């Protein structure tokens, strides 16, 4: 959610700076060698020490030092950190012991050290860092002159080199996304369970209790009906009242589970109904071509409902605007109010709850609320609309398209007449030369030319198949995930 391909942007488009700034950056990059070389030597020594002499405890601090040094370059090139997240501290069991694999420990020291070791040793980024650190002085030596003479292009080249080893690999990005998905799934399941418990409590404390009371009243009526009909009639009136209350209570519970208007009319009218019931003057604008899927619709409805009640409770606003629109398949909601502002997503548990709810659909929430207002809350759920509302298909770049066309159109020429057929003629030693280029050449060049022609034709066919295939895969991935973690940094 927070790592939208930072590396790609910054490496490709270095921040616009004057030549002076660029030159300074080049100088800093070169000066970094002074740190890198000693650390590289030290890390070589510790690696040898750790694995040849058993000085294992030296390994983690060295890795951390290397990460610091590579971190400097990462920050300059705008590359995000590729590391696995640090393992959480060991948690004791109820009996106070710490379990690690199949062994129990009295203190957390060994499990913690072991987790740390696994974390650092098992992360491929650790080793990529080492390799980069060893090679970087060499690269810098080669690039030193260009870096000083042509800072712009040279820095771009250097950025690519840095990204090559320092940026997260497609695999580690995917792993990161899987981790986030697992997290959001857990929170979704948790909040689902919490909802269930809340509903159960509401039914148990409210409706059920009222029905019990109703049953008791009816029992009393049964006893009274012969001896004291007047009292029985009075009790019956009470029973009717109680049933009406139970219904009202149930209606409230149903509203909390899935509001009837939402089920009947969809998000647009449900939000309009919310606006009508709100004490504020709420202006609603809806631009949705179709009904959303029920889970998304429900999440957005409750999010908007929560936001509106927040506005009514805290902001002191007069006017509120709710705007629901879509761009392509993404659905965007803007809730604007002219209140006193100062809303903070990190403080308000309400906003947090909304964020968690939306996370299940890869949705995000952004708040802009300066002191003194106005407040704008933006919600966005990607790919919420059916496919036909998607942006026009991602098309191949023109050079790829023309390559494919040229290859398909001309590949037969080198492969068959100039390659295979000429080869057969040559092998059979026929006199006819026709238009087979190779047969007109010098004897020693004939076979290599034929083989070259066959290779060229095969290559062209291969390219004509390979480019669309790559493109299709890319498109398929783009359409099935909102983010593009599989894309490398270059």
């Amino acid at each position: 959610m927070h790592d939208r391909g930072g590396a790609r942007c910054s490496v490709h488009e270095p921040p616009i700076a004057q030549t002076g700034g660029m030159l300074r950056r080049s100088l800093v990059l070169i000066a970094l060698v002074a740190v890198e070389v000693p650390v590289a030597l030290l890390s070589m020594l510790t690696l040898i020490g750790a694995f040849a002499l058993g000085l294992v405890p030296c390994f983690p601090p060295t890795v951390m030092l290397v990460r610091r040094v590579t971190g400097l370059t990462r920050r300059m090139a705008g590359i995000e950190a590729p590391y696995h997240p640090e393992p959480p501290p060991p948690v004791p069991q109820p009996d106070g012991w710490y379990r690690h694999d199949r062994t129990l420990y009295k203190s957390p020291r060994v499990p913690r050290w072991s987790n740390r070791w696994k974390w650092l040793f098992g992360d491929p980024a650790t080793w990529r860092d080492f390799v980069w650190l060893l090679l970087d002085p060499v690269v810098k030596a080669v690039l030193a002159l260009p870096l000083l003479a042509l800072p712009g292009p040279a820095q771009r080249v250097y950025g690519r080199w840095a990204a090559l080893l320092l940026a997260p690999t497609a695999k580690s990005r995917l792993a990161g996304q899987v981790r986030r998905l697992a997290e959001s799934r857990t929170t979704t399941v948790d909040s689902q369970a919490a909802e269930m418990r809340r509903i159960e409590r509401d039914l148990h404390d409210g409706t059920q209790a009222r029905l019990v009371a109703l049953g008791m009243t009816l029992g009393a009526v049964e006893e009274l009906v012969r001896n004291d009909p007047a009292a029985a009639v009075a009790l019956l009136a009470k029973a009717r009242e109680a049933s009406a209350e139970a219904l009202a209570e149930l209606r409230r519970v149903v509203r909390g589970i899935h509001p009837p208007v939402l089920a009947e009319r969809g998000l647009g009218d449900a939000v309009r109904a919310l606006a009508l019931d709100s004490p504020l003057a709420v202006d609603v604008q809806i631009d949705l071509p179709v009904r959303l899927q029920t889970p998304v619709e429900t999440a957005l409805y409750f999010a908007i409902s929560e936001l509106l009640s927040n506005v009514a409770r805290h902001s002191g606003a007069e006017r509120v605007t709710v705007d629901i629109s879509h761009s392509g398949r993404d659905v965007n909601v803007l809730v604007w109010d002219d209140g006193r502002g100062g809303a903070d997503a990190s403080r308000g548990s309400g906003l947090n709850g909304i964020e968690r709810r939306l996370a299940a659909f890869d949705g995000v929430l952004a708040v802009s609320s300066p002191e003194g207002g106005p407040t704008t809350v933006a919600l966005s759920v990607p790919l919420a609309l059916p496919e036909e509302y998607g942006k026009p298909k991602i098309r191949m770049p023109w050079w790829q398209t023309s390559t494919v066309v040229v290859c398909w159109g001309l590949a037969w020429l080198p492969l068959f007449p100039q390659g295979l057929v000429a080869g057969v003629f040559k092998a059979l030693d026929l006199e006819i030369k026709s238009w087979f280029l190779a047969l007109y050449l010098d004897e020693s060049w004939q076979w290599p030319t034929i083989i070259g022609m066959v290779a060229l034709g095969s290559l062209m066919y291969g390219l004509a198949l390979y480019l669309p295939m790559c493109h299709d895969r890319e498109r398929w991935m783009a359409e099935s995930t909102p983010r593009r973690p599989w894309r490398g940094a270059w």
Partner: protein
Amino acid sequence: MVNRVLVAEDLYLLREGLVHLLQAHGFTVVAAVEDGPSLHRSLIELRPDVSIVDVRLPPTFTDEGLQAALEARKQIPGLPILVLSQHVEQLYARELLADGSGGVGYLLKDRVFNAAQFVDAVRRVAEGGTAMDPEVIAKLLASKARHEPLGRLTPREKEVLGAMAEGRSNAAIAQRLYLSESAVGKHTASIFAKLDLAPSDDDNRRVLAVLAYLNAARR
């Protein structure tokens, strides 16, 4: 005399209950339907004196009943329809009232418990009046409460306004609020003056004026 009633309700027990209740009070049930398309057909073909329609009906179980009712009233203006629902929404009330022609009702299903009041509401709708659920009126009033003219009403006048918006006649309001009819008349005159509405002696037209006022888009 109001006689021919149509009932549209998908739950068998409730449908039968309504039919019995209405028959016991001297109505003739001309049709009891259970889904949207047949409701629309029956409304147009039979033109019942009054129809009692559940909002949520098959086949879609969304607001099929309400849509059929609105559609039929578009074709036959003023066709009396009483809408029943498990929940009341201002949004639906506003849609029903939008054409301003009367002969509409919108009540919670719970109101059926009180047979006398329910039958009274059915009669009122059949005669071109309105029957709005107190909950709807409360919501309509609440959403207007912050705005000026309504704020100038006395609490008693607000009570009278609420009862009037539900669709009750002066006599019924007097009975409910334990007032004399002339006192109710005085209150209504004062309300109309404060809200800047044209006074009228006709109960139904007066109610429609009040509802139109409450229904007006908020500034």
